[in-house]
C-alpha cells in the first residue's frame, strides 16, 4: 500500500542523500579527526607543554605559539592538544559506559516488567531530580580529584537518561509484531531478548550516546573549571579556562579562549555526528 511504498521510497531517497555526503557530517568527522590526531601526535613530537617558564609568560598568539603562552610560560597550543587526548578519551569513555550500563538496565527493566521496572523507573526519577553538576561535584569531592572519578560522576548523571531511552525503545520493540512472530517460531525469551529486542532497540541509545559524549565533554570541562577534574600540571580544557579567567579579564584573552574553542569544536562535532547517525540509522 501507498504508505509503505512511499515510505520506502522516501527512505531510500534520504539514505542515498546521506551517502552522497552530508557536508556537515563530513566537516564534523574531519574536525574531530584532526583534533584527535593532533592530540595524539603533537604531545609525542613537542611534549605536552607542562613545563613552567619554558617561554615567556602571556605571549600573544604568534607564529611560534599559535595559541600564545599562558601565565606560566607554557605553550597554549601544546596544552590544548595534550588536553584533547584526555577530554576526548573521557567523553568517549563516558559515552560507552553510559551506553552499556544504561541499555543494560533499561533492557532488564523492560524485560522483567512490573516490580523491577517500577523500582528502576523511580530510581531514575530520583536521579534525574538531582542537579547534575552538583551531583557530580559531590561525587568527585567524595572520591577525590581525579579525571576518572569525575568521569564516573558524569556517567552517573547521564545514566538515567539512557535507561529511560533504552527501556522505552525496548518496550516498543517488545510489542512489535516480529517479536510475536519470533515467539511463535519457537524462540525462547532469552533468544528474543538477545536476537531481536537488543539489536533493534540498541541503535537509539547508540545514537544518543554520541550526544552523551558531547555533553560529557562539556560537563567534564565544567567540573574541571570548578576545580575537581584534573590535577596540575595536566592540561584539560575546562581547567585551562579556569586558569585563564584572570588573565582574560585583565586583557590576555588567549589562554582561556582557545581551550573553550576546542570544547566548542569537539562537542559540536559529536553533536553533528549524532544527528547524522540519528538520520542514518532510523
Amino acid at each position, binding site marked *: 500500500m501507498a504508505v509503505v511504498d512511499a515510505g520506502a521510497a522516501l527512505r531510500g531517497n534520504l539514505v542515498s542523500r546521506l551517502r552522497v555526503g552530508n557536508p556537515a557530517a563530513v566537516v564534523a568527522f574531519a574536525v574531530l579527526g584532526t583534533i584527535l590526531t593532533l592530540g595524539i601526535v603533537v604531545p609525542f613530537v613537542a611534549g605536552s607543554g607542562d613545563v613552567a617558564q619554558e617561554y615567556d609568560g602571556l605571549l600573544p598568539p604568534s607564529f611560534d605559539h599559535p595559541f600564545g603562552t599562558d601565565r606560566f610560560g607554557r605553550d597554549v597550543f601544546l596544552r590544548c592538544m595534550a588536553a584533547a587526548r584526555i577530554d576526548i578519551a573521557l567523553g568517549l569513555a563516558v559515552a560507552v559506559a553510559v551506553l552499556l550500563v544504561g541499555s543494560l538496565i533499561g533492557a532488564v527493566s523492560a524485560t522483567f516488567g512490573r516490580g523491577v521496572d517500577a523500582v528502576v523507573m523511580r530510581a531514575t526519577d530520583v*536521579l534525574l531530580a538531582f542537579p547534575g*553538576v552538583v551531583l557530580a561535584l559531590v561525587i568527585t569531592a567524595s572520591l577525590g580529584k581525579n579525571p576518572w572519578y569525575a568521569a564516573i560522576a558524569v556517567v552517573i548523571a547521564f545514566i538515567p537518561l539512557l535507561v529511560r531511552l533504552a527501556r522505552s525503545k525496548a518496550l516498543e520493540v517488545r510489542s512489535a509484531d516480529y517479536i510475536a512472530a519470533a515467539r511463535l517460531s519457537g524462540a525462547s525469551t532469552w533468544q528474543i531478548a538477545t536476537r531481536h529486542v537488543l539489536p533493534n532497540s540498541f541503535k537509539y541509545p547508540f545514537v544518543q550516546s554520541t550526544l552523551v559524549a558531547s555533553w560529557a565533554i562539556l560537563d567534564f570541562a565544567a567540573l574541571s573549571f570548578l576545580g575537581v577534574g584534573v590535577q596540575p600540571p595536566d592540561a584539560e580544557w575546562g581547567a585551562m579556562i*579556569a586558569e585563564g579567567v584572570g588573565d582574560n579579564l585583565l586583557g590576555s584573552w588567549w589562554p582561556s579562549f582557545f581551550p573553550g574553542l576546542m570544547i566548542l569544536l569537539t562537542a559540536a562535532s559529536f553533536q553533528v555526528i549524532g544527528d547524522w547517525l540519528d538520520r542514518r540509522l532510523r
Partner: protein
Amino acid sequence: MLRTTGKRAGVALVSILGVAVLTFFITQLLPGDPARIAAGQYASEEQVADVRAKYGLDQSVPAQFAQYMGDFFRMDLGTSIRTDQPVRDELTSRLPATLELGLTALLIAVLLGVGLGVTAAVHRYRIGDRLVQVFVVLASATAVFWIALVAITTLVNGWGIFTSPTGRLPRGFAPPEHVTGLYVVDALLAGDPATAGAALRTLLLPALLLGVLASPSIVKIVRSATIRALESDFARTSRSFGYPARSILFQDGLRNSLLPVITNVGLVAGFVLAGGDVIIEQLFAWPGIGGYAYSSLQENDLFALRGYVIAIGVAYVLINTVLEFVYGWVDPRVNLAEGS
C-alpha cells in the same frame, strides 16, 4: 482523573522521598570532618568534639539518618556549619535571586526556542532552517562558563553594554521593597522604573547566557513538532480550504507543537536551576542558591549542601509533576477527565 491525580501525587512523593534518602547517603560520602570546619582551624580537639555533638555528628549513621528524616518531614534542613543559621532560611533568602535569574532564563529559552523552532519549521530544509540548525549545534556545544567569560570581557568590559557583575543591582540602587523578591517585579510594583530598569540590565546578561544555552532542546522539539504538524493531514486539510498561511502556522502548527515543549520545559528548568546556575552565579557574583551551594561544597558545609540538593531535587520533582498536570490539561488526547 482523581485516580491519576492521586497516582501522580504518589509518584511525586516517592520521588521526593528518594531524593531525601539519596541526598543523605551521597552527602555522607563527602570527605572531611564537618565538625572540624565548623569549629575552625584553630579549635582544639575538645571543641571539635563539642561541635560534633552539637550537630549530632557523633551519633551512628542510622541514628543520624533517623534524625535527618525526622527533620526533613518537619521541613527542617538543619543549621549551616559555616554561618550557624538555619539552612532553610538561608536558602529562602537567596531563592528569589535564583528564581529571578532562572525564570528569566527560562522565559528567554522558551521564547527563543519556540521562535527559532518555528522559523526553522517554516523554512524547513532551506537556508533558514540550516542556520537555525547551526545555532542549535553551536549553542548545545558551548561551555557556559566559557561563553560567559567571553561575554563578560567583550560585552561588559569591552563595550560596556551590560553592567558589571557585582550582584543584582548596580551601584547606587537600593533593593526595592520585598514583595515577590524579584527585583524587577518589586521595583515596578513600587513604581520605581529606574530601579526596575537597572535590575533588568543587570539580570539580562546572565539570563541571556543561560537562556540561549538552554534553548537548543526546545528549538529541536519545536522544529520537529511544527514540521510534523505542518506536514500533517490536518494541516493539509486546512490548506485544502485555503486558510491563510498564518492561520495554518498558528492554529495547526504552533498549537500542536507547543505540547511537547511543556514536557521539555521540565528538563530545561533542571538545567537552568541546577546545572548552569551554579556556574553562572559564581561568575556573576549572583547572590542565589547556586553560589551558596558552591561555597558550601568548598567549605564542606554538610547541612547547607544537603539542604540545597534537597531543595533542587524537590523543586524539580514538583515542577515536573505540575507540568504533567498542565500537559494533561492542555492536551485533549491525554485529558482523561474528558474521555468519552
